[in-house]
């Protein structure tokens, strides 16, 4: 990697200030960023670690019943600490990578990175979460804007993510055999006022909501409601691990399995 300065502030305000300098970059768990640096694919002037900021850590239940997760909370902490308050999300966190990745990688890093095969973007979009930053609150529907693209501005950091807790939810992840990211992952959340279905791994436009399935399931929450629905393969990803048609097919299968798991 190239040389860089390293800072480890203990407050959000200090972190934001440090990120104000040119080419500074936030460092979460480093599970994406450090390999990128090692390959010399990025050259930040300084890295601002968010791991010592107490106000960005932990899982708590808000007064309105929603679950708020600090932006620097690790996947392992979510898997353990959200198990009671939001089990489906905790299960999603528990399936990310391996123990080393889960003990370093953070929810803020994952959501900011918005890898098209990552799990958290599906969890956040499927739950209708709110992404809280140092300056504003952004609805998940507005936040994810295509592969590796988000609504975040330069220097803006995710301080927490607020999840409304559905009546039932399930994340169905079909593993890409090599990376074990999602070849296709479907996050289904059933709320009193309707069903949300978010799909990761599949689309060239990144995480998306499968609105036809949402409508059909909101009307009638049964596997059969999906029977006549099909995803258009045109926008699906095609790579070594699966064709467009295969991914489109898997979206339906995984959605069906998510229905089975929540019925």
């Amino acid at each position, binding site marked *: *990697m190239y040389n860089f300065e390293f800072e480890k502030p203990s407050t959000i305000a200090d972190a934001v200030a440090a990120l104000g300098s040119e080419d500074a970059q936030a460092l979460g768990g480093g599970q994406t960023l450090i390999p990128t640096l090692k*390959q*010399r694919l990025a050259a930040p002037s300084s890295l601002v670690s968010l791991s010592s900021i107490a106000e960005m850590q932990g899982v708590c239940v808000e007064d309105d019943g929603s679950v708020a997760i600090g932006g620097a909370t690790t996947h392992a902490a979510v898997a353990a600490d959200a198990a009671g308050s939001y089990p489906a999300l905790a299960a999603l966190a528990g399936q990310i990578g391996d123990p080393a990745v889960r003990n370093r990688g953070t929810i803020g890093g994952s959501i900011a990175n918005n890898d098209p095969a990552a799990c958290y973007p599906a969890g956040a979009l499927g739950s209708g979460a709110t992404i809280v930053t140092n300056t504003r609150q952004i609805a998940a529907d507005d936040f994810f804007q295509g592969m590796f693209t988000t609504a975040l501005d330069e220097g803006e950091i995710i301080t927490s993510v607020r999840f409304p807790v559905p009546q039932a939810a399930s994340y169905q992840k*079909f593993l890409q*055999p*090599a*990376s074990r990211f999602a*070849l296709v992952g479907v996050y289904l959340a059933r709320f009193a006022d309707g069903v949300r279905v978010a799909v990761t791994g599949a689309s060239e436009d990144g995480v998306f909501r499968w609105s036809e399935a949402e409508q059909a399931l909101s009307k009638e929450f049964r596997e059969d409601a999906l029977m006549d629905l099909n995803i258009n393969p045109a926008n699906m990803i095609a*790579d*070594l*691990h*699966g*064709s467009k*048609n*295969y991914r489109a*097919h*898997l979206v339906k*299968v995984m959605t069906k399995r998510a229905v089975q798991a929540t019925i």
Partner: protein
Amino acid sequence: MPKDSGIGASSKRREDVRFLTGAGNYTDDINVYGQAHVYFLRSDIAHGRITKVDTSAAEGMPGVVKVFTGKDFEGVGGMPCGWEVTDKHGAPMQEPPHPILAQGKVRHVGDPIAAVVADSLEQARDAAEAIDLDIEELPAVMNMKAAAQDGATLVHDDLKNNICYDWQLGETDDAKVNEVFANAAHVTTLDLVNNRLVANPMEPRVAVGEYARATEDYTLYTTSQNPHVIRLLMCAFVLGLPEHKVRVVAPDVGGGFGTKIFHYAEEAFCTFAAKACNRPVKWTSSRSEAFMSDAHGRDHVSKIELALDADNNFVGLRTNTYANLGAYLSTFSSSVPTWLHGTLMAGNYKTPVIQVNVKAMFTNTVPVDAYRGAGRPEATYQLERVVDKAARELGVDPIALRRQNFVTQFPYDTPVALTYDTGDYNGTMDKLEAAADLTGFAARRSASEANGKLRGLGINCYIEACGIAPSNIVGMLGARAGLYDAATVRVNATGSISVMVGAHSHGQGHETAFPQVVADMIGIDESMVEIVHGDTSKIPFGMGTYGSRSLAVCGSAMVKATEKVIDKAKKIAAHLLEASEADIELKDGQFSVAGTDKSVAWGDVTLTAYVPHNYPLEVEPGLEETAFYDPANFTFPAGAYACEVEVDPETGQVSIEAFTAADDFGNIVNPMIVDGQVHGGIGQGIGQALLENCAYDENGQLLSASFMDYAMPRADDVPFYGVDHSSQTPCTHNPLGVKGCGEAGAIGSPPAVVNAVLDALNSGGKAVDHIDMPVSPSRVWAAMNG
């Protein structure tokens, strides 16, 4: 009763103590005082003409010691190939030069163009970025069939085409083969791909070169399976150095799987640069570099045809294979698709007429060479897939079809140049049928179907030629080296023993198994014997470890040397006991005079050898013997495997529910280690069958260039294995009666897995003839919905 020491005991692997406690001394752990680091600037273009390499800016960068390009190696030899294959018209193979650093052209992504030696690796990388490079891109030669056409773009401009050789084995009369097929009652044909693999040993390659100016001695520390071979090739063919001035050390090496047999440019470079820079030079491959510079494995595209008569006897077999050699000839690459592959096409069957045709191709890809099994998996995969397909087409039981065609009389001369010394294929199949509970399969299939899954059973037989090899035979076949091995048994005055062996242990457990043999022969405790390996300055000579040869070949040398030691010790004992040498017996570490109670202990005799006060004057003092052993034949391990899979018909996901291996390895020294070797081999075979795929795009870019896209098998991808090694027909021509077990699992498992998947897909009214490896979920789904 299982034995608790000596031959046949499952002694615990003594080397694991240091490996598992972080105390191993791996190659990358070696750091030499004052060392500089080298970074190789590698081509990111598959095929192109180098029009400019300007290193002037790089040379002035901080910490830079020296920058090398192809020009610095113009007077130096290239990387040699150790096996000359003669094509079917009698011409030698086309053998293009393979420079240490690219000269004129780059020929694959990863081909090294320049090397920067600097105080630190990061400084070397910084400087490499300052090298001004122009490469005029040429079309990449990727498809082997297209590459064989007249007028195809040439990988090597000076060759007449991209075909290294067009080789044939077995029946040379095409008309005769055609006639067999024309008269056959049934012909089964299959087109298949043996997928390209990357070995990915846990420790990437490392080389540290050192030069002592005052004495002109070189030392190379390297991740090698055969340090003497590296020394010989590098001294004789590449750098032109006297062997006695070069020491090659391969310490603890973190896995090899074949890919660390070969002499690599980086090794020669570090040795050369150590003198040129007058500083030790170290290189440690990154994982990304390993993907584009370690020799790959497999990569065959084959058509196989099997002819059967009206009684389902195999009457003819013909194969046509394109074998990818990559851009350059790696050390043993030419032997893999030929003598390690064509010779195995008879398999376990007495097919009378066999013709094997192989076109070996140059392409703009990483060189391909031996990988666990080397040629034999490619042969077994074709044969066992086509036999299974024939059984399906004919509606006969695949086991019965195999049994009917087994070779049952030994020795057996195959139509493809081998003589099987011994075996019992029906006996081994009996063991498999029992161990795998094949009668219970129908019930297990019903249970799977009740869960919405398809279940399949795949059977496979294999034979391999191991213990490579009789030097006179391989010499006739084109090997440019002998393939014997050597051992020195050095008995110390107090009776403990160091055995210097030419085999190299990089995970195989030699440090445990070899002493079991010597201790057993003498009747002393295993802890009194230790082996020394991996250092040309310590061991007499060695051709190294590959082809499941260590115990069969080097172990035999060790037995011979131990016998010489015992003979001499008996002379000394006879003197001490005032008896005739012929009457001396050795048992449990005691020399005694037959029929008397007079005896003297091993330790007293060894002490006498070194303190020869009361000593037979005609015998030399000391107790140390060396033996070289050249085998009389290959060894022929064989086995039968059964794999059971479940397929999720909705997603195409395959899971391996059971895997049973019945192997005949002849005599076994350490059953636990043998089980472990089989487990590892099957794991790698399952990796090839289900997961691993080294893929390029049409421009020669490596698509699977990291573990993000190259799927290595993980623990939860494989089942608990059932292994049965009770079928034992000892090898007839080596002293231990051993055959070798290192590659069996990797040879026998891929066809078992794929046969099982196809069996599953053909249950429940589906009909799928063929899927290429890796049988990934997407491929299974596509085949089912195709």
